[in-house]
């Protein structure tokens, strides 16, 4: 049913992603699909790397570790955004196209008041992506 699953990850908040990561791996095993872990970074240094190259190396290590521990085939994809706070959704939507994914599995926070003003990332991806989107609540 699915052959390429895209999983957006925030390497700084992996604990919040656990359910989504497990769910994606289970689906991948079930359908024999590959997973692409997508990370978004800025050109400026962050806690996760001095530059996008270092960030990418870290994401690769993460993908390899996931592949090993969950017994799946995994890749990584690093997307760069100038202003991640606001450009995250658009960057992820572009990554859906670039990775050729047919399913996106992503974690979401519990909806709250601010969602009326600032739509959640999961909500926007689900509304605009061309493929299926599974939003997993933490």
């Amino acid at each position, binding site marked *: 049913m699915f052959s390429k699953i895209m999983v957006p990850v925030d*390497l*700084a908040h992996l*604990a919040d992603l656990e359910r989504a990561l497990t769910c994606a791996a289970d689906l991948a095993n079930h359908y024999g699909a590959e997973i692409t872990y997508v990370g978004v970074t800025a050109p*400026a*240094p*962050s806690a996760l790397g001095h*530059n996008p190259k270092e960030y990418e190396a870290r994401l690769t290590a993460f993908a390899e570790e996931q592949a090993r521990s969950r017994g799946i085939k995994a890749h990584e994809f690093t997307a760069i955004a100038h*202003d991640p*706070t*606001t450009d995250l959704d658009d960057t992820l939507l572009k990554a859906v196209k670039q990775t050729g994914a047919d399913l996106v599995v992503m974690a979401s926070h519990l909806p709250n008041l601010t969602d009326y003003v600032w739509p959640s990332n999961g909500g926007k991806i689900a509304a605009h992506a061309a493929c299926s989107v599974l939003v997993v609540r933490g």
Partner: protein
Amino acid sequence: MSDTTNQGIPEPEGASDIIETDYVIGQDNIETKIGPFGLDIHNPVFVISGLAIVLFVVFALFAQDTANAIFNGSDVSETCLAGSFCDLGMRAWLTSKLDWFFLWSANIFVIFCLLLIVTPYGSVRLGGADATPDYGYAGWFAMLFAAGMGIGLMFFGVLEPVYYFGTPWGDEPLGVVRPFTEDGVLIEENIAEARRMALAATSYHWALHPWAIYAVVALALALFTYNKGLPLTIRSAFYPIFGERVWGWTGHIIDTLAVFATLFGLATSLGFGAQQANAGLEHVYGLPNNVTVQVILIIAITAVALISVLRGLDGGVKVLSEINMVIALLLLLFVLFAAGAGGILAEFFAGLVAYAQEVIPLSNPHGREDTGYMQGWTAFYWAWWISWSPFVGMFIARVSRGRTVREFVICVLLIPSLVCVLWMAVFGGAAINDVIANPETSAVKAQVIDSYNPPLSLFAMLESLPLAAITSTIGIILVIVFFVTSSDSGSLVIDTITAGGKIDAPVPQRVFWCTFEGLVAIALLIGGGLGALQAMVISTGLPFTAILLLICVAIFKGLRAERR
């Protein structure tokens, strides 16, 4: 914070020279939720700068006379000696006693930047040897102009050249001849020389020197962020000088000062800007000129800036800056052709020549008689540019990744300088033409020379040209939009500094700073105190000048390590 933070950072690939430090970006940050709002703020910079700003606003509101006496020197008791601190106030005292320090520092920044262009250090690429530019020339150029100078060009483009041309207050640059007699009659033989010096003296304040100040700060931040891997915040530029101490209180103080200068600089300009726009609206449409209209203007400007920061750097700030540059260019072209393209272009080249001839005498602080010009204008301008440099420099740094140092300095120093000289030649030239052609009836002469009424100088010049109703409206729109582009980029900068250099802090934080800035402006506008606080911001120019000299040393050290 996840446990992956300290794993897997590979060695840099020879393209850049990462500074090894144990500091992890965001390690001092507090990530929390207040109600439904997520926060990711630096402890203690966010809280201290927020509280200090509130305290100073309260001080300015409730102790207005004291605040004015300290910063602006309004002598209540009338017992102060002429020229003493309590007579002049902090700002004027600094610019009159330390004029030599400001002038020499600015000269050093210009020489430093020019040296970078011609030395091999110019070939270092910001972001590592393989980096590619994040923005094309048009967007990059529009952003650095709109953030740092746009609004000043609108305000001073007519005012300054005309003021130097015919000032009756003894501020003639280098003591140049006046083209008017005491009774306001033109003296034909003095016109050419007064005009030449007016253009040179204006260009001096808007060309190489201010842009060198911005370039030094921006280059330091870009270098230490993109090449050395330190967080995008002001303290990073001081790493070569203070070492690991920049992550402690030394750095907290530097960052807090920068937030302080940026927010008050923006808020006070926003307050004065609203008054200017209001004066324009009254002049063109007969709208009432009162606090209510000005508060509405501030709310409108802040609202548009909010939309811009919510849309982000690419979708908001860049787009708005580009729109702004197109409108400004159209206005420039209109004035150029309406006032006679041939004559004005000749004025531009004459301005360049005059600038080249006079820049050295103008930038020498010793043995000058024209203290009205040198202290009242030049030293004031230098302190002003320098107090704005943390904000503008940091914004320029953020959008300049992927350029070589040489390309960076040429584009931040030389090209904006040329554009500024052109702008001053066009707007100032058209205005001076009008003053000479109709010395009796000229509105420009009435607003600048006969009665000093700065906010109306631009509109007075536009009146002397055809289609004044349309161009004046465009002028008002430009003033407002230039404020928006300063306000939104300023909010992004403050947000990044108060998030410890993280540029992916939650949206509510940038909304907070943008709104806060508008509120501070409104409070000061209603309660008074705009002048006192602006004088205070300009006073921060003094410590920053010393800091900038240190930064030059840091840049030199950083570039040398990069070339090894």
